[in-house]
């Protein structure tokens, strides 16, 4: 894993919270003529809480989440029906970059295409995706450090794990003729390891890519 070593990255410069929209960053220390980030705003559609840029960014994140939600593959050999999809990573990254509201929007809208395929399953996916990304984004907003990111991811994963198990107890009987007790019997052998593996992948990948993604986000200013 040395390929992703973070050793050269100073803490505290990680992700600029999108809510403050950039002006805080002083790129040109000492050089007064260097343009600050939002210097080229016309003040029309490219500023404010819902700038066109923000809308376009959210839209592409949601589209990415939708696209990835269809990329499913089984995690545990021999248990082909518990499928993993990487869409949760997008909500986590969006939450880190733009705050809990973005995490919520990407989590919810990202599964809308599934609403007309598997309605109850979509409710379940919403619950879990929100449970993972929103707490993580909330904590990271307060603690803007790498340890804050780790804490956020761990808390998010725990919340999502609880929600996933509770949700499975309620929703699985609708898809399969099983009693709640029968589903409960599956918690330890199937649900727990699968969901843990799923959140582990989402969290590890998010942790590895959120720094470069945020660099890209900050770089691509007009």
């Amino acid at each position, binding site marked *: 894993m040395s390929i992703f070593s973070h050793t050269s990255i100073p803490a505290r410069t990680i992700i600029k919270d999108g809510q403050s929209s950039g002006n805080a960053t002083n790129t040109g220390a000492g050089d007064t003529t260097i343009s600050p980030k939002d210097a080229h705003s016309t003040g029309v559609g490219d500023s404010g809480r819902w*700038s066109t840029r923000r809308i376009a960014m959210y839209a592409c994140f949601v589209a990415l989440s939708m696209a990835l939600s269809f990329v499913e593959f089984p995690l545990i050999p021999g248990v082909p029906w518990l499928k993993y999809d990487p869409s949760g990573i997008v909500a986590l990254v969006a939450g880190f970059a733009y705050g809990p509201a973005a995490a919520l929007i990407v989590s919810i809208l990202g599964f809308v295409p599934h609403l007309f395929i598997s309605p109850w399953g979509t409710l379940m996916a919403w619950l879990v995706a929100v449970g993972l990304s929103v707490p993580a984004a909330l904590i990271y907003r307060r603690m803007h450090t790498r340890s804050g990111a780790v804490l956020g991811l761990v808390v998010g994963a725990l919340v999502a794990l609880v929600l996933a198990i509770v949700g499975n107890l309620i929703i699985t009987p609708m898809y399969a003729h099983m009693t709640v007790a029968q589903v409960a019997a599956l918690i330890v052998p199937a649900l727990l390891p699968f969901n843990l593996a799923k959140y582990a992948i989402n969290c590890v990948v998010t942790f590895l890519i959120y720094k470069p993604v945020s660099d890209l986000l900050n770089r691509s200013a007009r």
Partner: protein
Amino acid sequence: MAIPRIPSPTSASVDAYDMRGLAASLREVRYRYAGAQDWALDGVSLDIRNGEYVCIVGANGSGKSTLGRLIAGLSAPDSGVITLDGHMVFDEAGAHADQYRRARHDIGAVFQNPEDQIVTTVTGDDVAFGPENLGMSRTRISEQVAYALDAVGMTGHLADDPTTMSGGQQQRIAIAGIIAMNPRMVVLDEPTAMLDQDARMGVLTILDKLHRQGTTIVHITHHADEASRGQRVITMSAGRIVSDSHLTAEPAGADTDAYDRPSQDDFRHLLQASGMPVTWLRAGSSDEYAPSDSSPASSGVSVTAAAPATNGVSDTADSPDAEEVSAARGPALAINVDHVSFTPQGAAFPSVEQLTFSVRSGETVALMGANGAGKTSVVKLLSALARPDSGNITVAGIPVATDHRYTAGAETPHGTGSAGRQTDRRARAARWIGHLPGSAVKPLSRRQRIELRHRLGLVMQHPERQLFAHTVAEDVAYGPRNLGLSEQEVTQRVDEALELLHISELRDRSPFGLSGGQQRLVAIAGVIACHPDVLLLDEPTASLDEMASARIRDLLADLHHRGVTVLLVTHNIDEARALADRVLVLEPPKHAGQQTSIRHLHGTRNPEAGSMSTAPDASSTERTTSEPADATDDAADIHAGDGSGRSAIAMLDARVKTVAFLALMFSAFAISSPYQLAVGAVLTAGIVAAARIRPSLLLARIHMFLFLFVFAGALNIFFVRTGTPLAHIGAVPITDDGVYTAIIYACRFTLVIILGAVYVETTTPTAMTDAFESLLSPLKRCGIHVQEIALVLSLALRFLPTLRVEIMAVTYAQAARGGSIESGSPAQRCRAMCAIIMPVFAASLRHADNLSLALDARSYEEGIRRTHWHDMHLHFRDGVFCVACAVYLAALVLAAVLL
């Protein structure tokens, strides 16, 4: 009518100057990008008169695009004074938002990338987006949409999906979206850069027409011939205007683009004049004297037709034709393609047809041909990222595709070499073992695939888009690590590759902080580090500056001396002449349209990414791709609010439909008895009939889920222990109750899927998001930006297929470097995942940047009062539908209680 340059840069004189008659006026404007050292615009002063046709030319980085954005009112400068359409939008006091807003409503902007300017998946809705943002009335919007589509010659495409159109059509629709807003000035930033010759002429003709009607045109271009169409040519260099000339004369400093794609005749002529050995690869079937090509038995005939016509200028002995190829040179061939045809998934016609060619070991061969000739398809076929319909492919001795019909079947004079006999035996075995149904072509085995990865290097188009790691060195090391080399070897390989491309100094930089040219070099180093014997490059120098291009050419020359076989796809004749031993020219298959050959590549079955199934067709954005004919038929009928020709279900108010369908789908999970199932089936059948959906289409939409039903059913069989045991599987009893519930569950699941498919089939994304917006509008009181969120959803549905293509492209590229998320240790899989996710995020940001400009150009703003082209009024039919659904729900409950 020469306009004198106005020398006075002070704002006082600008105020004094008569602004009437001026579309735009800039004084001493300076602009610098964040973190940049040099001014992108350094004291630009410029007046553009109303009705003028101005072309702005200049090299990459000269500031012409920046200037275009300032003139379009999409960006503000650092200093200077700008007046747009009589509005003083920027002066010493900075940007005046209200002035910008007013000015922008009269200025349209069109950008380079046609796809990213399209905001929704129905042409009419897309064109209506701008008028909606301007708050026009519904009737006015209808007029504007009709007028604008007529102006660009796309009237018949009102209901078509623009995202599946060719680049030229997309760009015309983008222009229509601007025309519909009645702009007084249109600023176009290289609108033809991504188009072929015909599409280019289409766009230029539209500009001429707009100009004749009095619209001010500002056209930023790097084509000298395009610039000469204007009345006035402004040349930019290093952020300054270096010349400003009126009419006819071609600008002195204008860059002629090295990547200009000459028309087919010029191309032929130039190639012939170049003196290189040229082989024209014609598809067997496109020749009139090939009577039949489809059946393998007749391939003997089509071989003759497919035999390359050798250019008279060249030395015939040097260019091996089909006969020599398969007969004698078996072991010396690095690449052998034998009668290969390939139809991209979803395309109506093959992009490669009966193609035969070969490349000897150590040769450098240029593969050329017009857009749509199938060059990129060939690259994918050779690298086993796509499987041909028929034919044999061997690369570096590895059978990439083996067609048993061809080798084992017809006795042709060409198909029987020693290699042929070998594949023949293998093919017979394959027939016994049984290969994938539906294709007679056997792909390579897993071991052979790994072997291919070791031997074959692939540089796809825009390879820089696959960069992902923190540092250049880590990125280059990705391929060698996947080969399983030791850390020491990996480091050695990385150093060597960086050295070969002269980028050792970039070693520890982040790849994302480099210039485009540097990124390309790093990406190529990542392929070279795998030490391929055979290297495929798909337009490696396209849109690169001269220095980076020269490095790549040096590298290829270097590799050639080291004995590496190189197949170089290029448009550039000079490049081919400098590097290649000979040239192969692909002639497009008879039916190849640009649309089919490029658009549908993303759907190509990729054995490596087998689990990356394309999304179920129920996803709304896929709706029209496979049904172009239907869409066109309906096109004439569909007008906003006028539902003639649409089915009863399609005409329902989208809000009613959304709520009702969700209620039906959610409640279907309560079905637990045959009576309830019968009620549900009757209602569903009624809805399908009312929606007038052909059963075959419905089946196509839901067949992906059939295996799910089988699985769900099987699960129930195992879990139900009550009832009479019918059989035992191991210790698990199969009971009649189990079978009964299995059937009920599978059936109710089917109902849900059918209802969902009907909803998606009869509802446009615009209607769906309008409905969501309307339904959620009470949340506005809680401070939730419902309008913006609805727009995000609408845009996301639009960009879903685009990003799916990006994901596929990156997955291909990383697979070619040996990355796989489906095998290996957890650490390897995580690394493979990052190597895909990171570039895909970068792609999302790239699209988002373009999209946000396009939204600005269409005058979208947070919280504006938008109108909706489609009317949302409740009609009688909506009431009837609600009652029907309520009766059904009551019947479900009654059936549960009474029976």
